[in-house]
């Protein structure tokens, strides 16, 4: 369960002030996926950072059931250490999330297998291609089997096949009762996964609605209208 109440946040002071979030409220129940569509710089990342507790919002509150421990985070970068192997990286993050030592090796193997990167386990992350690093970053976020996943442009750097795989994986997680928040500038990515849709524009406007029975094409049209009317 994820809850946001009256979130407001702006950067800078005076005329340089950019409003990222303007009175954003929503709740998201387990098994739901919120897709936040918006152009670059609209404040999607700020929203995710507020939900993750990285940024304290100037107004309002955000809470995730289970706290930090229950959050899986995929940011713009991989958060992996280039000079450590993939397995060492995953074991390190597992330890930080209190995955028991006895379970962490099996857990690392499982997520690597799920992401199709098992054969890279003992390579240094710095030597992997961008697409593989992105998969490794997703493996990192799933290492502690989080209840809530916050994903910031997770499809960046993935080829079509890998993107389809990731969509299938996220669909499974949703089916298993996980809560997902997915931010992207590309409506085609992840629109099928979404149970709830939000559009975010510069200036912090966010409009939320259940997806209902709208088709991806309808949503894409709506998005174009919403962003164009800026």
């Amino acid at each position: 369960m994820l809850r946001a109440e009256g979130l407001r946040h702006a950067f800078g002071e005076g005329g340089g002030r950019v409003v990222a979030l303007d009175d954003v409220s929503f709740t998201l129940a387990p098994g739901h996926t919120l897709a936040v569509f918006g152009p670059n710089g609209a404040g999607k990342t700020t929203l995710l950072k507020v939900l993750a507790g990285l940024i304290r919002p100037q107004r309002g509150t955000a809470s995730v059931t289970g706290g930090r421990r229950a959050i899986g985070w995929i940011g713009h970068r991989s958060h992996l250490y280039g000079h450590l192997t993939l397995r060492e990286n995953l074991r390190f993050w597992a330890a930080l999330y209190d995955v028991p030592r006895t379970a962490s090796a099996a857990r690392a193997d499982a997520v690597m297998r799920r992401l199709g990167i098992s054969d890279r386990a003992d390579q240094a992350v710095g030597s992997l291609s961008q697409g593989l690093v992105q998969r490794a970053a997703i493996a990192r976020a799933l290492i502690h089997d989080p209840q809530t996943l916050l994903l910031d442009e997770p499809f960046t750097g993935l080829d079509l096949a890998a993107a389809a795989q990731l969509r299938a994986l996220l669909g499974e997680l949703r089916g298993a009762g996980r809560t997902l928040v997915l931010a992207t500038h590309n409506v085609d990515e992840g629109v099928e996964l979404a149970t709830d849709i939000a559009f975010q524009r510069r200036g912090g406007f966010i409009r939320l609605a259940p997806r209902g029975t709208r088709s991806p094409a309808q949503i894409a049209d709506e998005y174009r209208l919403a962003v164009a009317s800026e």
Partner: protein
Amino acid sequence: MSDLLRRAWTVARKDLMLEFRTRTALLSAVVFTALVLTVFNFGRDPTAVAPLDLAPSILWVTFTFAAMVALNRAFQLELENQALEGLLVSPLSRYSLYWGKLVANLVFVAVVEAVGLPLFVLFFDVPVGRVVLPLCGVIALATLGFVTVGTLFSAMVIRTRFAELMLPVLLLPFLIPPLVLAVLATAKLLSARPLSDSAGYLKLLAAYDIVFLVAATFLFRFTVDE
């Protein structure tokens, strides 16, 4: 508390693993230390100044420089792929993060000093035989002082312009008390005075360590959290 320390150790172990995997920073710091000691040898007039008179200053100026090199890279590791952001999202407390970084830096500087001290003895023919243990104690206390403040500052300077230059400018004034006290205590030890002669210096050194350890532990979160 034990949770806090366990997570700190997880962070420190990761840092050390990275350090020994790449080795560049550690090797550079060791070579740097050897070079500074060599430069000092030629930077004095051997007929005018006895090595023993200058020895404490040489040792401590060298160690201070070495610590500076080590500290500059402490948080650089976390900038790669924005690992720091991942750490901040995780349940890791800021205290654990600071202590983990502190421990890793202490080990790093200790390794450099472990190489530097024998070289120092060798180059300057200093009679350390009987005072090795107390000398190591002085080194440990002073190093804790440097690194405590240095770790805190290195978390700040990584996000400033001219980071490599900013750290020494900010940190050097803070190195003066541990430096002065360590030089005084080392001089007393090397001239074969009883340890009780340096008790006052050591107490003040310990006070410095405690004050800044407490302050840095609580101030650290302001350097990383928005």
